[in-house]
């Protein structure tokens, strides 16, 4: 269990990707962070298809998912993960700007594991990302099937 766990970040906005990665780096979470630029890419990664066809087997320790994305949005990705028998054990954290009630309700209905509103204040954001990374990638014990050697 000393192996490092991979974090899948599904985020279409490169600025957000950069800030998120910066926040994670600041806390030296050395895990490999895989970035998918939209929902479709995120699903490709999870199902090892397209550009991720050749990736090593195993599921990420956690999926950080933005909601508003072109092509396949975060809700659809979440729905597919949680309705797949193999994937549904993978923890999914919504990382979004929206604090709309309906998004919250829809996410929890689909079985999201956590819902985090990205604060405007960057320091708050750094703290939130740090806590997320620490909790899901280090503290949380993943299901047996999630990570295998790459």
């Amino acid at each position, binding site marked *: 269990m000393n192996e490092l766990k991979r974090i899948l970040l599904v985020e279409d906005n490169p600025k957000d990707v950069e800030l998120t990665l910066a926040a994670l780096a600041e806390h030296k979470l050395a895990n490999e962070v895989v970035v998918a630029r939209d929902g479709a890419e995120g699903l490709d990664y999870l199902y090892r298809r397209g550009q991720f066809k050749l990736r090593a087997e195993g599921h990420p320790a956690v999926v950080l998912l933005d909601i508003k994305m072109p092509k396949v949005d975060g809700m659809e990705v979440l729905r597919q993960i949680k309705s797949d028998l193999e994937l549904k054990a993978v923890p999914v954290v919504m990382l979004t700007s929206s604090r709309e009630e309906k998004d919250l309700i829809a996410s929890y209905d689909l079985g999201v594991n956590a819902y985090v509103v990205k604060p405007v*204040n*960057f320091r708050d954001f750094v703290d939130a990302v740090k806590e997320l990374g620490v909790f899901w990638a280090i503290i949380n014990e993943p299901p047996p099937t999630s990570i295998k050697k790459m």
Partner: protein
Amino acid sequence: MAIDMEKKSLSGTLSADPRFRTQFILLSRLACAAAGSLGATVLLGWILHIPLLESFIPGVVAMKANTAIAFILSAVSVWILNTNPEKRWPRSVAEVSAIITLLLSALTLLEYLFTADFGVDQLLFQESADAFGTFNPGRMAPATSVNFLLLGIALLSESRGKRKAAEILFSIVVTIALVTVLGYLFDVAELHNLGPYTPMAWHTSLAFIFLAVSFFSFRMEFNAQFLVGAGFWGAFVALTYIGIISYWSAERQSEDAQRVAHTHRVIEKIEEVLSDVKDIETGTRGFALTGDQGFLDPYFAKLNTINNSIQDLHYLTIDNRRQQARIDSLQPIVAARLVLSSELIKLRKEKGARAVLGWPGIIKGRRLMIKIREISAEMAEAEHQLLTQRDLETRQSVRASIITIFVGTIISLSLFLAVFYFLNREITERRQIEEQIRTLNAELEQRIADRTEELVNANEVLRTEMSERERAQAVVRESEGRYHSLFENMLEGYAHCKMIYEDKLPKDFIYLDVNIAFEKLTGLKNVVGKKVSEVIPGVQESNPELFAIYGRVTSTGKPEKFETYVEGLGIWFSISVYSTNPGHFVAVFDNITERKQAEEEILELNVRLETRVVERTSQLEAVNKELEAFSYSVSHDLRAPLRHIDGFADLLTKHATGTLDEKGRHFLHTISDSAKQMGVLIDELLVFSRMGRIEMKTREVNSDALVRDVIAGLIHDIQKRKVSWTIGVLPTVQADPAMLRLVYQNLLENAIKYTRPRENTEIEIGTMRHPNENDFFVKDNGVGFDMQYLDKLFGVFQRLHRVDEFEGTGIGLANVRRIIQRHGGKTWAEGKIGEGATFYFSLPNHQRG
């Protein structure tokens, strides 16, 4: 009621005493049985030839067989009549028995009357001709047959319901029987032995008495009439008996006197004979001594009379055999003496005086003379004895008569006294009753007078009522006139109709009466007497509801009001229907076509309006959706760049720490601050927007608890301040609890914020109740505000203070206003710079509304 009771007590004294009723019935049965068994016993004696059973006492006259049979029949008849049978046949038996008795006695009486023999006497049994006291063997005594004749008639009368006749006849029967019994008791043969006929036997008379006792005791009533009748009858019997006894006594006394005279005559005659004999002897002796012819004159005179005297004596004592015998023995002696006398006279004449002396005939004559004297003395003695005996008998019978008369008189007197007592009591009672009746009558009359007066009063009242009624009728007539004018002049149409039913369903109706307005409103003329189906053809098809409603009102009697369109007339009617009497109804109606048209226009307008509302609503909904989408994008997309600005500013600060001077760091800091500020504004705007959109969840909210909870959440803001809270009694309200909490939170936060400069903060939360709403207020002693900016107070992002004075975005009161408006309430405020502010809001009282 009182009168009835009086009557009862009056009749009670006259009616039979029920206590003795059973005893008398028992007595009646016993007496009847006694009479019957007496007859049966005697008949048994005749059948078995036992004379003792026929007469009961040896040597007295026997009861005849016919009598016995008649008694058995009579007893049967009396017994049956006493039971008073309902059925026909027992009564027939009683009557047949009575008729047989009657025939038997009647035939016997006829035999007596015609001295004939019809063969009824010895029909069943033979009686010897020398039976004691019997003149006609086997024939009942005349008195007995008379009694049976009366008895037979009496029983027939009783059977035919003629009680009075029966009672009288029974009284006669018992009188005859009683007299006979008394005759036996006082040994007065004349009472039962009438001439040369068979007397009534003593037990026959007893049996008659038994039958009478049976008859009367059964019918015994202790009323005055019966007692007086019985008393008088008893007195009559007693007096009759006294009369008979008196007559018999007088008769006997005169007879005795004759007998005494007769005895004296007999004695006289005896002495006459003796004297004659003596005279003859003396004459003979004188002639014999003297030879004087003169001495012989008495001799010859007496010689002629003496035989006549003896003959007289013989005749006088003809009923006395002993005296007759004496006379018979006297006669030859007297004759012998007379012979001796004539021989002496002859001797003297022939032989002279000397021859007479020593004649043996003298001694013989003397002896004969002594004998004559003896017999005469004997005869006189016998007569004297007879006289003495007769005197004794007469005296005895006189004494018996006196006693009988005395006793009878006492009895009859007692009876009369008893009758007098009864009558007197009866009269007294009657008088008392009459007095009572008079009193009652007087009371009754008083009552009648009272009642009459009441009736007179009632009449008066009635007359007053009648005159009032007349007045009322006049009023009614007047009212009728008014109603008629109403009927004729009213603007509504009026139709009185009669329902026509087909198969018990209301199918048509006839107009019986309509007013003038009817024509004006319907345009129909001369409808009275016509059917509606004739007046408005096709109405039954076009307006079936008309008949349904009219039929319902006619059958239930409940008035109804409805509106309908009559196609045949092209008119809308408003119709009120009521039922006057079964099968009839009255319709009062108005033409409401114009109103209906207006209504229809309104309806049309309404429909159009509604369409527009729907259109507008959908437009608004679309706008709302757009707004939602807008706010969503604001929330999501607007915040992202701000975040990026802050993020990269931060990264830049770190990255260029060495190269940036103080000014550069200030700029980066300002960029970061502005981005954060804008983030806060966006967040608050989103909250405000949501307040207008989210669904309200209204329920009962305890304002007091809510306020205290909100204050508790603010404690850490005022830790170092002196705040005195005044909280009034806050009511329970209908509201969305989360929203109301936000209201209080904003108002209290403001109060705390704007009182910060004050050393002693005073915040008051209170309420003012009104009928339909509750006003709430939060009052502080803070910096206050200028009333001229009041209208800006509740605007979005409107502020009356600079941020460096009091932080804030200016959204709080806008939220308060929006929330209160959504609850149907109002918000307002009062304030003055430096003197604090009061914020009000009202909530409608839904519980009462």
